[in-house]
């Protein structure tokens, strides 16, 4: 390995001082050490560019390095080779415009000490993947249930606990009405008629029962929706356990949906004032503190790259307000958007949710979208105040807080958010980079459901196809597809080296202590290589376009796995092509 001169020189300076006391740095007594440390930090950070979202291209070796690092990230939840139980390195999706903590010294990767599990997912989304700068993402917000009854809240059977004269019990939220798929269908039809396409559908906390997800996704696929983000309630699997409360992130890939689960980590506590505010006193005695009866699993943070450079995270209701380890990881990574489904009152800019949304929009600069149900917003009637129809709140970086109401007679809200280039900063003297993405503005339209939808009324929704790859395997497949797209665009000769890297038995996996790809993943990778290899071997100037054409031709009788493989490659190729054409356009206008 040839080590660049500056790196070798600074490393030598640091190694020579390995036994120096840290106070030499703290008190700036050894300036040479300060210089070496900051230089090495900046070099390492720059070398982490593109390990998450890669907007800029690199050469043949860079493509292979990125792909290996992404497989490592998918398998272990960290970019570092050091075990994630000791330390975790994650890609940075965005950086704040200002800040005063040590983490603002880096702009491409974030270092976290253990305490929270973090997972990084890549979802090769159809509509969003080809998102060029300056285009919009259409979110359909369904603030449902539209009506919530007092009886939807009930105490969980069991003795009340008395703690130093402060009694408390547990409650659950179980709405009596099931999700109205027919209304979803008709609302989607109206939204698509208005906007052309709906990219993401979002529902509030606990809006959907676990058993309803498959039917909902089948319906969304018919409407060519790319992603679903919904709060889910799930009955306990065995007696003696509490229900689960989580956010389901479903991403449509090819013919299947990839599923990602972000659990809620903090229980809602209903006190006297809130029981009266939501008019629940007949269901829950106001002199008792009621805790939400949910299982609280080990803390984890899920990050989802949705294509187009957009990285998403989700926090459920109370979790938005907590300054715990999950909040620390979210702040370090700086996702493009944090979606927060809630079971809460109106999303007014004067309430608690807005305060915490404002904090995340300032640092790390994430857009925050909160969404509660219209039913819950209507139940919230503090003394002397009328119910408010404000069901959602948008706060983008550097933007004003935007309250979003559901108008009378409307069933949903179409929120169109414009994604544009953003600056990446590191506060160590490096020049700002222009390879970030942020949401720069939103527009809102009320959606009134059509009288008919796409589905025949009461048509039984068949179960969606079973996933042929796990979420981690899909991330790995997407990572290699991105590498192939980049190689086809800039270094077609490196396709063979990439193909060798992907194969089982490649030495680098041993060195990184990674397990071999499973047979289905291996099959999917091989079918992708075949297309890329043929396109590269054909010669000529346009291997990327040739591969795109080949990946777009579905084969008769192709297996679900082959279909998925082609869809993933197609998505990566389209994304690369969009970036290339965007760059060419910018060059022409400069």
């Amino acid at each position: 390995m040839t080590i660049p001169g500056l790196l070798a020189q600074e490393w030598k300076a640091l190694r020579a001082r390995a036994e120096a006391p840290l106070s030499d740095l703290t008190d700036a007594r050894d300036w040479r050490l300060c210089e070496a440390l900051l230089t090495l930090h900046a070099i390492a950070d720059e070398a982490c560019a593109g390990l998450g979202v890669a907007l800029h291209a690199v050469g043949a070796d860079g493509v292979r390095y990125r792909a290996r690092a992404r497989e490592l990230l998918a398998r272990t939840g960290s970019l570092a080779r050091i075990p994630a139980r000791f330390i975790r390195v994650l890609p940075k999706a965005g950086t704040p415009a200002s800040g005063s903590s040590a983490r603002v010294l880096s702009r491409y990767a974030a270092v976290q000490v253990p305490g929270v599990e973090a997972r990084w997912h890549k979802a090769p989304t159809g509509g969003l993947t080809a998102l060029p700068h300056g285009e919009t993402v259409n979110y359909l917000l369904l603030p449902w249930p539209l009506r919530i009854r007092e009886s939807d809240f009930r105490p969980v059977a069991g003795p009340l606990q008395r703690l130093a004269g402060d009694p408390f019990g547990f409650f659950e939220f179980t709405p009596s009405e099931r999700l109205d798929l027919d209304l979803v269908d008709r609302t989607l039809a109206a939204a698509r008629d208005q906007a052309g396409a709906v990219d993401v559908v979002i529902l509030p906390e606990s809006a959907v029962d676990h058993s309803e997800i498959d039917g909902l996704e089948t319906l969304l696929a018919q409407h060519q929706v790319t992603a679903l983000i919904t709060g889910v309630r799930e009955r306990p699997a065995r007696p003696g356990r509490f229900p689960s409360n989580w956010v389901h992130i479903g991403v449509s890939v090819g013919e299947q949906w990839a599923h990602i689960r972000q659990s809620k980590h903090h229980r809602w506590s209903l006190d006297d004032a809130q029981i009266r505010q939501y008019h629940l006193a007949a269901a829950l005695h106001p002199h008792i503190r009621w805790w939400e009866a949910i299982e609280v699993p080990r803390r984890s943070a899920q990050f989802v790259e949705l294509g187009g450079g957009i990285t998403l995270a989700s926090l459920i209701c109370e979790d938005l307000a907590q300054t715990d380890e999950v909040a620390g990881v979210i702040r370090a990574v700086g996702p493009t958007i944090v979606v927060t489904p809630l079971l809460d009152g109106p999303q007014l800019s004067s309430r608690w949710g807005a305060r915490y949304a404002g904090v995340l929009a300032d640092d790390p600069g994430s857009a925050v979208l909160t969404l509660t149900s219209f039913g819950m917003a209507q139940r919230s009637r503090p003394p002397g105040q009328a119910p408010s129809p404000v069901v959602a709140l948008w706060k983008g970086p550097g933007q004003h807080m935007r309250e979003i109401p559901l108008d009378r007679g409307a069933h949903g809200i179409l929120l169109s958010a414009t994604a544009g280039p953003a600056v990446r900063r590191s506060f160590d003297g490096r020049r700002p980079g222009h390879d970030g993405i942020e949401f720069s503005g939103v527009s809102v339209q009320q959606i009134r459901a059509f009288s008919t939808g796409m589905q025949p009324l009461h048509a039984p929704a068949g179960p969606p196809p079973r996933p042929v790859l796990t979420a981690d395997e899909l991330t790995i497949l997407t990572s290699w597809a991105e590498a192939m797209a980049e190689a086809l665009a800039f270094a077609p000769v490196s396709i063979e080296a990439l193909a060798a890297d992907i194969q089982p038995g490649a030495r680098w996996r041993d060195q990184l202590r990674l397990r071999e790809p499973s047979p289905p993943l291996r099959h999917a990778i091989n079918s992708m290589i075949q297309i890329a290899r043929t396109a590269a071997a054909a010669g000529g100037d346009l291997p990327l376009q040739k591969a795109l054409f080949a990946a777009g031709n579905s084969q008769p009788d192709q297996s679900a796995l082959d279909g998925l493989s082609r869809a993933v490659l197609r998505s990566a190729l389209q994304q690369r092509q969009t970036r290339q054409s965007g760059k060419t356009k910018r060059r022409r206008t400069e």
Partner: protein
Amino acid sequence: MPAFLTPPAATTLARVDPGRTDALTEPTLDSAWQAVTRTAIGDELLEWPPDLLALTEVILERSRPTGSPCPHQPTCAGRQPASHNGPTRSPTRPGNGAPEPRTLT
């Protein structure tokens, strides 16, 4: 040379030797790294940029005095306070100050 690497003019003159006894009991770069990863600082960290980033960030974090890491950066003014503190409707919903029960599930 980037601006941040310019040494303060008085660095050399202001240097104070804490003395041998203090130095022996203080955490060092290597011991700080070992405390986190249970391995010593070695050349293999150069092979993989995220590993090198982890090392440098651990040392930076552990050696950082309280306050801004970039006192000379004019843009490093600190995060603006959240701007909405107007009249509230149940502003303190999360937890309301009550400790969450832990052992009852």
